[in-house]
């Protein structure tokens, strides 16, 4: 049949060994027979339906398409895609399509692809809003987020109030686990980092102070810097990466797996049960970690002082004791409590506001860390200005 009538306007595509193809013949007037041959599979590449679609509107114009698939060797979605495209083009031009020449499986799949029509309004038109709209909407969402954080802070304060009068619902063991996690378990990394920070401060100071013959003042430099600023700040930054992110990821995952909903339906406020122990634990542990960090940092300075500057350990110790006053320690420790509360609050907040997917958990952890570090450094800067002004 295919051989008998070589109709005008025959389209030929060179047959290759692996890839399948098609030829289209106008057999009887008005009927376009598409002969499919070879392998129409993913591994041999896609076939565009554009060419044959053009054929539908060219003269002489067919009114009907039929298929001959006797030479078809193998097929998969490549063929189905070709046929659905062809069919869409045919429908546009009012050409009827006769599927009977296709293998049964192909016929069924083409029908299946059409079976559920696209739901009205389901498809999303992705229009990028203009600059002004974007600036506006991100400003609004920033304000909304700030308001939400303040709400969360308020809820946490109410929770702490209930806790102080002994009415908050949480398990003591959860608090102990949180304390262990943000206290003792953090000691090695805090020790390492603050030792290195003390070392670096001493090193930088030593080179400068030695020029004036004032090498002993390295002890003042390291002692005051650690106690007032670096001890609390480095520990807080470490804890935001270590614990703040963990809180956000932990609570976020609980949100995804409906654990938070389960608490709510039991009438247990997640704020008291999940958030409070974490905030309390970190606020309690941060000052202790900071004291530890300060001492280890001063030991780092001592190492440089004795090895590089030939200061005796006793002299270094006496100089440090004389230089670092109780107010320096106090400033550092007050900041440490504040930082601990901020890290825990932000971590828990991002976790509790997590959307319900794995990607959202990652986003919650990331934004918790970033926000913690921004807040810590901002608070530290403000505190330094206040302390300088008040001469504390």
């Amino acid at each position, binding site marked *: 049949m295919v051989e008998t009538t070589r109709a005008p306007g025959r389209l030929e595509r060179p047959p290759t060994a692996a890839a399948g193809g098609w030829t289209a013949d106008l057999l009887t007037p008005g*009927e376009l027979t598409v002969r499919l041959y070879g392998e129409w599979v*993913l591994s041999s590449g*896609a076939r565009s339906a554009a060419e044959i679609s053009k054929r539908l509107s060219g003269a002489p114009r067919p009114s009907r398409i*039929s298929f001959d698939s006797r030479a078809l060797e193998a097929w*998969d979605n490549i063929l189905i895609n070709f046929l659905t495209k062809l069919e869409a083009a045919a429908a546009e031009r009012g050409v009827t399509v006769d599927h*009977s020449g296709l*293998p049964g*499986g192909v016929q*069924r799949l083409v029908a299946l692809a059409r079976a559920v029509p696209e739901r009205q309004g*389901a498809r999303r038109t992705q229009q990028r809003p203009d600059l002004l709209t974007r600036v506006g909407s991100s400003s609004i969402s920033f304000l909304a987020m700030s308001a939400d954080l303040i709400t969360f802070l308020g809820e946490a304060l109410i929770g702490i109030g209930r806790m102080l009068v002994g009415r908050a619902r949480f398990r003591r063991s959860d608090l102990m686990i949180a304390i262990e996690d943000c206290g003792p378990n953090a000691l090695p990394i805090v020790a390492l980092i603050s030792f290195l920070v003390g070392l670096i401060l001493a090193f930088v100071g030593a080179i400068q102070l030695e020029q004036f013959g004032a090498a002993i003042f390295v002890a003042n430099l390291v002692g005051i810097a650690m106690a007032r600023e670096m001890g609390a700040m480095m520990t807080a930054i470490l804890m935001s990466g270590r614990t703040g992110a963990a809180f956000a990821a932990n609570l976020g995952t609980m949100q995804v797996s409906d654990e938070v909903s389960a608490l709510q339906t039991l009438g247990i406020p997640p704020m008291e049960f999940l958030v409070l122990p974490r905030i309390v634990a970190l606020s309690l542990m941060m000052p202790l970690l900071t004291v530890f960090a300060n001492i280890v940092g001063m030991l780092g300075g001592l190492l440089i002082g004795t090895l590089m500057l030939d200061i005796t350990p006793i002299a270094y110790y006496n100089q440090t004791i004389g230089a670092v006053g109780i107010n320096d320690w106090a400033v550092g420790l007050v900041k440490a409590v504040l930082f601990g509360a901020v890290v825990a609050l932000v971590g828990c907040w991002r976790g509790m506001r997590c959307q319900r997917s794995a990607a959202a958990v990652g986003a919650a952890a990331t934004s918790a860390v970033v926000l913690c570090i921004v807040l810590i450094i901002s608070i530290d800067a403000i505190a330094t200005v206040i302390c300088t002004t008040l001469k504390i």
Partner: protein
Amino acid sequence: MSVAEPPLLSDPRTNTTPEPHIVVEDLTMAFGDFVIQRNLNFTICRGDIFIIMGGSGCGKSTLLRHLIGLQTPARGRVLISGESLWEVEPERRDAILRRTGVTYQAGGLWSSMTLAENVALPLEQYTNLTGAEIAELASLNLALVGLAGFEDYFPAQISGGMQKRAGLARAMALSPEILLFDEPSAGLDPISSRLLDDLILELRDSLGATIVMVTHELASIFAVGDNSVFLDPETKTQIALGDPKRLLAESQDPKVQQFLRRGEPAADGTIQTRQRTQA
């Protein structure tokens, strides 16, 4: 040629005489010393829908993981088209497994990608198609499972039933010869579950793929199953093998009967539903 030609060519993918596709030989599954199931022997024929059933915790999903090479047998072999998964080169194993598609119990859709991107990823990785062609095929796959127009949705934004179907679309992306479903209808309402069964039957008939399903939905088991294996958690081995409808009618094993009758000890060959007296 006004009369439609009869389909002269029988379908190259469905025209197959029953031939073994997946063979499980003397398989023992274990985590360390803890044996899950032992002495499993069965054959899944090409184009069959094979059901793995059994009570909770009997190792159904673990068996599925052995069939797709996620877990190594403690003993025995799994042969796919005559090739033993663990006796061939790792590259060859990857090539064999690329011809299998899997849907996971919880969907397993990547939550950071849209549905179209989920379906497109296997195509991007394993074919030489262009971006536009891949996008077309991804849309086609979604249309086949009834999700036309949902290309730009994220998995978290659609319902559970739609997630299952999107998982199916992804599993089919590379036109696999074997499709494995872990609890495809778990968590679906009866109607969605029925529609999914119909879809699975339709895909088997048109693609000619071999389908392995882990399920304990009795309605699905009887509606789609050609063959099945029943795993028993107590004796830790298979206690029944065959067409689930025949097992219901003929099996003498009380555990199999109890399972297939939802615990109702009926002997007259019909499934009884419990009469509820309370309002």
